[in-house]
């Protein structure tokens, strides 16, 4: 073989290797087998292209190969038999029929294989074009690298080797192509030194840089692995997630054994709730803190069953009867439990199910026929509990002694809890007389002592480290789990029974149904907060997380001076970073949103009209632009006819004419005099109007003689020129 042929062969060979690197992940990821068969097909194709086999030889040969592959994979028939032939014909007939009737699923596997071969055929054809004609495979090379790296990143495919192989063969292939190109451009035989020099230096550079890159120390990735982000954005179910792994997806999950770590945003809607006021949606509580997270003690506890519409006896007393409101909930994801507003009284729904209220975690699970069922639409009647401030102020520390043993699980703390946590609790609540004040002090503590809300920077306790201790003393950065867990632990350190509540924050108003706001709750709204128990009062919610507010309703029944009153919005937030707007600004934004929504709706209702008028206007504008020469300058004639016959008008007319001439492509050079230009223009139009106008203009402009002008004559000349322009 000549050197040229060697060169050409090498190019095809390296491109073949690149192509195989495409094939590998496809075969692996689609669970297709027989990589070697497809590779041989590619080899065959490139071989044909290399020897420049005429297409009328190559095409039947390729078809023969494809047929043989199909027969040998899918049947036991001998290829050179009549049966095999009829099998192929029949397969073709059936599949073509399926294609014509667009029954995509009817297409059989042999035909799919055939189509895949066709795809490969086209690809090799294209590659041959790139090699033979364009002499450039850079685009293909880049695509290959992108393809492999993307698959390596986002799919189970491991492309470590492939990337190296593809890079090396791609670079060598490009280098060889370039050598070939030089040879052709210089119309010389490709000389061996050039070939050796070109390829040798290329390989040398690749080897040296590759070795260097391999030896040099490499920094870790500066970005976190993007895969979880993409996967979380893709999948919508969130139940059962959590716990393991560095990154978790935000949302409701049941496993809270290992808290901490960054969260990935997920705005998948979970449910919508038409409810008059903002509600926290409680799902369940947990009682046992493990120093890493939460678990539930005695899951086999008491369960009470209720029918639809039946009054539910929860351990939180609802408010007054007349304050009962209805929350209409539409689930967008399947959960077999009820989203409980505080003060839940009963659940109404059209669907048949029974509710079971668990004593242990206050979860309202929905059952039907002995198994849990998700319900989609239900109404919850509730009346927000109201607490008497007077009674709250009277919650004495001594009263805690009278707590029964059933509260023990709400006072549980791990033995490994560092003492400084307890000391902190004592110091925070020092001086508070009532239990309520202690709880409030703890709740407030997070808002004033350098704590920060961040979903990404939350740490995971390692080794013996305590989750709460780490947050309170080391990081001070975290999200709701950190704040709520810490508050529960601090409350318990002070002997106040407390439990960790899981559920959803109120969400965002998306629309209004008969003036009742409809909130949309997404996975991003998954939240955790605190319930504390005060003897004689009962369970009461607290919201320690910065940026959230959920004060329990208080009855200001104190008979003391008002200045000692606790403000209703008792959470004096020193405006920390707010992931959610506070109530007041939220209302403003609600109103704004409403106005926005209405105007958008108004436009949307008339969408068709708008679009048609825009299209119409655009069309008219386009026509006007297209035929601007026809009308634009003609418009000038009546405009100037309306003016006086004097120098000023004439001067303006003359300049307008110059402008028009310019826009029609008769450009006056910078250094060109008017006389010269006029001669040129009159040459174009075969007249002398421009010269007439110009001499008058010059007389007036340079000579200052503006009186002895026959303006009528000038106007005639001017209109003549303008008409000629638009004609």
């Amino acid at each position, binding site marked *: 073989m000549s050197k040229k042929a060697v060169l050409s062969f090498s190019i095809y060979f390296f491109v073949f290797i690149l192509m195989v690197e495409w094939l590998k992940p496809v075969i692996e990821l689609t669970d297709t087998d027989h990589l070697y068969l497809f590779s041989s097909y590619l080899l065959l194709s490139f071989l044909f292209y290399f020897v420049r086999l005429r297409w009328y030889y190559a095409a039947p040969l390729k078809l023969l190969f494809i047929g043989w592959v199909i027969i040998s994979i899918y049947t036991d028939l001998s290829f050179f038999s009549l049966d095999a032939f009829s099998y192929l014909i029949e397969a073709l007939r059936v599949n073509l029929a399926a294609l014509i009737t667009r029954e995509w699923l009817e297409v059989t596997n042999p035909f799919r294989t055939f189509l895949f071969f066709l795809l490969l055929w086209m690809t090799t054809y294209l590659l041959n074009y790139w090699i033979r004609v364009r002499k450039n495979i850079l685009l293909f090379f880049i695509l290959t690298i992108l393809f492999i790296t993307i698959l390596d990143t986002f799919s189970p495919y491991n492309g470590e080797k492939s990337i190296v192989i593809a890079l090396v063969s791609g670079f060598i292939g490009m280098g060889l192509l370039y050598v070939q190109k030089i040879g052709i451009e210089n119309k010389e035989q490709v000389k061996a030194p050039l070939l050796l020099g070109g390829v040798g230096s290329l390989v040398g550079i690749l080897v040296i840089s590759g070795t260097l890159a391999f030896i040099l120390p490499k920094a870790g990735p500066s970005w976190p692995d993007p895969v979880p982000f993409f996967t979380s954005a893709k999948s919508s179910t969130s139940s059962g997630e959590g716990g393991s792994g560095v990154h978790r997806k935000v949302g409701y999950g049941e496993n809270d054994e290992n808290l901490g770590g960054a969260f990935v945003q997920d705005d998948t809607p979970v449910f919508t709730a038409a409810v008059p006021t903002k509600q926290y949606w409680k799902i369940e509580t947990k009682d046992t803190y493990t120093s890493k997270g939460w678990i539930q003690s005695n899951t086999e506890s008491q369960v009470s069953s209720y029918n639809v519409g039946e009054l539910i006896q929860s351990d939180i007393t609802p408010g007054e009867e007349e304050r009962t409101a209805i929350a209409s909930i539409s689930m967008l994801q399947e959960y077999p439990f009820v989203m409980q507003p505080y003060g839940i009284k009963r659940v109404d729904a059209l669907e048949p199910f029974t509710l079971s209220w668990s004593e242990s975690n206050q979860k309202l699970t929905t059952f039907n026929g002995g198994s849990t069922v998700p319900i989609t639409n239900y109404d919850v009647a509730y009346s927000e509990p109201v607490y008497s401030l007077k009674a709250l102020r009277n919650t004495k520390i001594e009263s805690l002694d009278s707590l029964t043993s059933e509260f023990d699980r709400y006072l549980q703390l791990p033995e490994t809890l560092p003492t400084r946590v307890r000391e902190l609790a004592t110091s925070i609540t020092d001086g508070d007389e009532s239990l309520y004040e202690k709880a409030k002090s703890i709740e407030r503590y997070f808002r004033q002592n350098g704590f920060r809300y961040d979903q990404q920077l939350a740490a995971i306790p390692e080794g013996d480290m305590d989750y709460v201790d780490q947050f309170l003393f080391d990081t001070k950065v975290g999200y709701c789990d950190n704040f709520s867990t810490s508050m529960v632990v601090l409350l318990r350190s002070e002997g106040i029974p407390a439990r960790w509540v899981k559920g959803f924050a109120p969400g965002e108003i998306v629309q209004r149904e008969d003036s009742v706001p409809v909130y949309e709750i997404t996975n991003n709204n998954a939240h955790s907060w605190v319930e504390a128990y005060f003897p004689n009062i009962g369970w009461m919610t607290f919201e320690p997380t910065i940026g959230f507010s959920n004060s329990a309703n208080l009855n200001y029944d104190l008979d003391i001076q008002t200045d000692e009153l606790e403000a209703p919005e008792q959470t004096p937030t020193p405006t920390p970073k707010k992931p959610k707007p506070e109530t007041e600004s939220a209302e403003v934004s609600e109103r704004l949103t409403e106005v926005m929504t209405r105007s958008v709706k108004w436009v949307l209702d008339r969408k068709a009209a708008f679009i048609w008028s825009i299209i119409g206007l655009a069309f008219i504008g386009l026509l006007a632009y297209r035929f601007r020469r026809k009308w634009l300058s003609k418009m000038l004639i009546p405009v100037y006819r309306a003016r006086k016959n004097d120098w000023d008008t004439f001067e303006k007319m003359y300049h307008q004419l110059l402008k028009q001439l310019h826009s029609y492509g008769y450009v006056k050079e*910078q*250094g*060109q*005099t008017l*006389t010269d230009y006029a001669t040129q223009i009159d040459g174009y139009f075969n007249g002398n109007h421009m010269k007439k106008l110009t001499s008058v203009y*010059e007389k007036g*402009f*340079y*000579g*200052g003689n503006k009186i002895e002008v026959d303006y009528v004559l000038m106007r005639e000349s001017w209109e003549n020129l303008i008409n000629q322009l638009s004609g």
Partner: protein
Amino acid sequence: MMEQLQIQSIITNIGKVMIGKKNIAELAVIALLAEGHVLLEDVPGVGKTMMVRALAKSIGADFKRIQFTPDLLPSDVLGVSIYNPKEMEFEFRAGPIMGNIVLADEINRTSPKTQSALLEGMEEASVTIDGITMPIPKPFFVMATQNPIEHEGTYPLPEAQLDRFLMKLKMGYPHPSEELEILDRVEKLSPIEHIDSVITLEQLINLQKQVKMVKVDQTMKGYIVDLANRTRLDTYIYLGVSPRASIALMRAAQSYAMLQGRDFVIPDDIQYLTPFVFGHRVILRPEARYDGISTEEVLTRIIKRTPVPYKRKVSQ
């Protein structure tokens, strides 16, 4: 209009003697009307003398010719005071400069001393001898010639002195057909003998006064200044033109406008005259010569790039 006819008649009259080269005759007349002087640069024998003589005859003016030689003294140009023993006093004998139309032939052949004597006289329109200043009679028009070919034993005019000439013209050879006509004309007789004056000296002086009346619009003055300024900034030009050149251009343009029968100057006048008026006043950088670019080309480029004012600057 009358002025135009008078001027045209001079040019036509010269044309009787000078075959072809109408534009040179025209420019010479323009220079005369603008009260300037002309430097004619050309090889001998192309009709320089003939033209000047024809011009002098056409206006009925006194024609003097000074043939410059290396040994010519200033007194040979200006005149000399000679002691008259009879009268017992010095008597002034006027030199050839005391004429209306003076042909200073081959001016670069004489010593700088003599050259400057002439040039001073041109500039001042008067001569000073022995402390007595005598005005040169009007009209006074010097046409100096120099031979561009011979450099041996010549004293090239310094730039400062070139500036004294309003224009520098080049005759060039006549077209073969024109040359044939010249031969035809001079075959039997000498045409210069047969032309008469077409206007009187008084009329000429009046014309010179009229030239100054031609309107030069403010924009045109600005245009002249712009052009002059650009010669000073051009990369190919080592020395740009002086304000004297701007004045000269304006004067020449006025004169040219009158020749065209206009009482105002238009940009075309200025563009036409710029090479003749500015040409000998700029010095090109050596780079221009290396690039093979002539003064004319540089000036043409400047004219092309200088925006012609054709609207009032809008006073906003």
